[in-house]
């Protein structure tokens, strides 16, 4: 993992735009130069657009797009509960409170070659900045997207131009054996003998388990970005642990990106 060079900051950000993408999905653009400047793909912010007496905790969100020069970043989020409901009502010029950037981001392979990005649902939010950076670096990107329903499939528009190949399945109308988008990855590994420098997965433990199986056979580097309920987001509360081969690790501090083989994925 690439370590955050700077410790997280606590700042006020300004909403530049907030729009409904489709269904319960929204994209919000926030101006916060001090955070945008140091933001790395795979890192996240703790955000609140509410008073502590309204909702007690901030909520973690990955960077979806980072524009260090303009001092802004975007978040792609799904409305699922109280916090994201309030967030979805954001208007231009609203203020949000931010702690960030938090956690360790993705590392890209040293070699120039192929990488695979595997995302389910909102997981694509976390992988987009990685694709942008990978593309800049001259890597060839294979994208594998999955979602519950066709109209909830996020990212083809953004990831498409960055990817040399893009694959997707949806639960309601899937392609590929057993509906797992990772079967396409398996096919590539098996038949074409395509070599991947690294595989990155976000948004599904089920897909991650499949990749772990493939990894055992084909020996590529693989990274998973994980989510856990968070108190502080900065490592202080020890609230966000997941189980790894090294014992409990904090998603906010040792993660959210972990080498796939270190994570104990059962449950």
């Amino acid at each position, binding site marked *: 993992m690439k370590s955050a060079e700077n410790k997280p900051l*606590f700042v006020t950000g300004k909403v530049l735009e907030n729009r409904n993408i489709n269904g319960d999905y929204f994209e919000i653009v926030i101006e916060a130069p001090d955070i945008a400047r140091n933001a790395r793909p795979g890192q996240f912010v703790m955000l609140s657009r509410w008073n502590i007496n309204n909702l007690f905790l901030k909520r973690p969100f990955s960077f979806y797009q980072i524009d260090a020069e303009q001092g802004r970043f975007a978040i792609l989020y799904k409305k699922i509960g109280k916090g994201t409901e309030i967030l979805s009502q954001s208007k231009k010029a609203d203020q949000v409170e931010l702690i960030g950037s938090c956690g360790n981001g993705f590392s890209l392979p040293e070699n120039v070659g192929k990488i695979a990005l595997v995302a389910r649902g909102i997981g694509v939010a976390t992988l987009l900045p990685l694709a942008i950076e990978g593309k800049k670096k001259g890597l060839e990107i294979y994208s594998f997207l999955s979602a519950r329903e066709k109209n909830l499939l996020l990212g083809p528009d953004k990831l498409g131009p960055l990817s040399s190949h893009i694959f997707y399945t949806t639960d309601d109308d899937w392609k590929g054996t057993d509906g797992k988008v990772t079967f396409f990855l398996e096919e590539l590994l098996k038949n074409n003998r395509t070599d991947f420098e690294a595989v990155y997965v976000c948004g599904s433990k089920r897909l991650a388990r499949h990749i772990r199986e493939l990894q055992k056979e084909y020996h590529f580097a693989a990274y998973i970005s994980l989510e856990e309920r968070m*108190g*502080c987001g900065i490592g202080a509360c020890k609230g966000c642990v997941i189980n790894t081969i090294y014992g409990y690790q904090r998603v906010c501090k040792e993660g959210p990106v972990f080498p796939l083989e270190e994570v104990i994925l059962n449950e």
Partner: protein
Amino acid sequence: MNNKVDLSINLGNLQLKNPVMPASGTFDIRDTILNKEQLNSLGAIITKSIASHKRLGNPGPRIWETEAGMMNAVGIPAEGFEYFKENILPLLEDFCVPIIVSMVGDSITDFCQLAKKLDNFEKISALEINLSCPNLNDGLYFGTNKDVLGDLIYQLKKNTGKVVMAKLSPNVTDITEMALTAEEAGADIIIIANTFLGMAIDSEKLIPRLGNKVGGISGPGIRPIIVRMIWEASQRVKIPIVGVGGITSTRDALEMFLAGASAVQVGSANFSNPYVMLNIIEGIAGYLNKKKYKSVKDIVGLIK
């Protein structure tokens, strides 16, 4: 703007330049947003509870947000003494505010041995005894049985010359009785209180929200109970009381002083607002000024 008001307070032999400090387990010197200057402006610095040997803590999920606060079932994944000595203590050397070390133990002997070891370090000003972490069966025992509580403190005092702060459990019928027991046994300071034991259930998945099933409730929802407990105990105990539980603002902190606390700790509110302690220190000064009090001592226990 603020005229000089005196924020300093003596908790027995512990001299604080102001009465606001973090609550154990919600603050980590290794993982704080505050810079050195900001840290040095706190009343004291406190560690996450440490143990004689490494403890893993509970399986996740460890956090659940409640209607006015949160529950945690972190379970004290404590560092062992050696790790603490090598890796944490050196980080604390740098600061010019009192350093309080919170301790957790499995038995009276365990507590005493740890205290004895910590006693050797000049830099440590006080030992806080976590009597009440409700996530450990044995921890609850110390905090809710007055005979064991008394015995523990009595034995502990024989093993350390440091100021001993007894952090009580609020999960008791009579907090005053527990506070008096701690005082009699030799505690220098009473802290009221640790978290309330609670539970939340996910009716969709049909499982508890926390990996450990039950966890400790913190935050504003329980503050009125804590304020009442401080008020009750402060009528009877003579040693200083530190209030903790649900403070999110200056107003909340003032409630505790008025109820009888000489200092306060701020816990989970740090998560939402990492500057909350700094804001409260300033807020108290502003309040004293406005109300024309000279010192924070003037408002301790004003409500009888």
